[in-house]
């Protein structure tokens, strides 16, 4: 640190500027350096964001004075009780979970063949092209994709045009319309982890299985499936959690149907009942937490 303390170098004297002094002090104090690096981001993320999340958790136990509309601090389970007893809330909670489960199952069923084709059948060159074509739509805005389905599902849209001649009809703006759109939105998130886990399954393992007399289906069931299960679970985490928290898609293509997110939105806005909104918002978080704990053993979390 000779330069910084202003010693002579050659014949030239370097005068310590203010920046030099700070640099010298910082150099000798790594802990101070670390604190300075961390202070701004940790103040922001910790003191605002984490504090906001904790406050949300606490607010869920507050109530709202129905007369003045003011928050009443306290520890009341009222909000959580009405989540299960109020017929609107419990119906919406069950519907949201139902849609999330349905979307996840459909996405996994669609992802398996395409991931298998990509990982085990396609040539390396085609594989690269396929991975990029699956990734590309992920970059397009989520809102735009949901909106795109609004025109596809519309009464005068392409679904109606394609399906009416064969005696079917577009599902229109309904729960199934919302299910299709959500399944569409999260499909790439499900394909990619399944694909990467399939890619890691060594081909000679499959050959060994067939050499030992196993039929194709037996190999898939007994060798491939257990090996790619973490990938499937990882994919399902995405589609499940993203569906649980969604409220834009159901607004755009779901008609008048509501999901948990809508209830949160109306309770923050129109109903001005933040505690209820907080309690509802915790439902997806709690469900996801339970799901993540349940699947931790499969090793799926390393596949995210």
């Amino acid at each position, binding site marked *: 640190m000779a330069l910084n303390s202003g010693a002579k170098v050659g014949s030239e004297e370097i005068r310590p500027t203010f920046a030099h002094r700070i*640099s010298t002090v910082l150099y000798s104090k790594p802990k101070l350096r670390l604190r300075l690096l961390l202070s701004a981001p*940790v103040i922001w993320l910790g003191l605002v964001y984490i504090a906001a999340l904790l*406050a949300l958790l606490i607010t869920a136990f507050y109530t709202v004075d129905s007369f003045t509309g003011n928050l009443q601090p306290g520890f009341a389970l009222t909000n959580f009780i009405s989540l299960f007893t109020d017929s609107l809330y419990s119906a919406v909670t069950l519907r949201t979970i139902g849609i999330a489960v349905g979307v996840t199952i459909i996405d996994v069923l669609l992802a398996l*063949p395409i991931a298998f084709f990509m990982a085990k059948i396609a040539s390396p060159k085609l594989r690269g092209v396929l991975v990029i*074509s699956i990734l590309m739509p992920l970059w397009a805005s*989520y809102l735009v994709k949901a*909106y795109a389905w609004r025109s596809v599902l*519309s009464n005068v849209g392409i679904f109606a045009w394609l399906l009416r001649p064969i005696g079917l009809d577009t599902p229109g703006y309904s729960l199934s319309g919302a299910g299709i759109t959500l399944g569409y939105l999260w499909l790439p998130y499900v394909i990619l982890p399944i694909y990467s886990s399939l890619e890691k399954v060594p081909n000679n393992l499959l050959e060994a299985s067939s050499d030992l007399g196993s039929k194709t289906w037996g190999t898939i069931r007994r060798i491939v499936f257990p090996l790619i299960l973490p990938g499937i679970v990882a994919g399902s985490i995405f589609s499940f959690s993203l569906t649980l928290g969604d409220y834009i898609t159901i607004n755009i293509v779901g008609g008048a149907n509501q999901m948990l997110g809508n209830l949160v939105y109306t309770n923050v806005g129109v109903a001005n009942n933040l505690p209820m909104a907080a309690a509802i918002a*915790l439902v997806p978080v709690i469900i996801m937490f339970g799901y993540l704990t349940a699947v931790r053993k499969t090793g799926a979390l390393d596949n995210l």
Partner: protein
Amino acid sequence: MRISKSAKVVLASITSLILTVIYLPLLIVFLNSFNSSVNMDWPPSSFTLIWWQKAFSSTGLIDALSTSLLVAACSTIVALVLGTLLAMALSRYKFYGKNSVSLMIILPIALPGIVTGIALNNAFRTMLGFQLGLATVILAHATFCIVTVYNNALARLNRMGKNMEEASADLGAGIFTTFRLVTLPQLVSALVAGGLLAFGLSFDEIIVTTFTAGGGVQTLPIWILDNMFRPGKAPIVNVVAVFMVIVSIIPIYFAQKLTSKETKN
């Protein structure tokens, strides 16, 4: 395991069918932006450029676009500063609570947007006493953009190692000089990639935005959401949708290119 030829054909056709379905809706939005029917009747009976004309002459739309660009630019800058500081701290130091800090960085993007949205809404209004507006949107966006900058910078810093920085210090450079002449030049392409991703993330975001924007601020996604259900406005929404896909794909394309070039080297 032997896969029969017919099974291969079936799998190939499922794959191409799914890929078609993945691209079809986006293609339809593109075509509908030229569809002369206000209700977007399919198939289009004739094509027109009138919606594109109307979109570019709508002042509300231009305002929303400039708001979106401003929000994305500002939150990217905040995310760049905070993300770089975090990456330097976590890559160069060992300290108590390191895991909690890295969890804290991922949390805003790992939790459902609606949870982050109302948490920040509550924090801004009741804890900090802010009026919801442009500043709160920028802060909210910066919060979930930090992670993209952080991830890119951290990966680069770990790959760089400490040798060069130590050599620089041994040769007499102070901390700031080392950062300016040794660390930053090696870090800059990772920061550009992370910044581009942050920009794209912010430009597209809708859920957290609806909770932190208040009444007066209209970003492009909010404009789309507001106008989507208005009769007669849907064709212009198509134009904006096409435009948004293009604007969000360009930065991400370059970010991807930067990172893939680097992993090859």
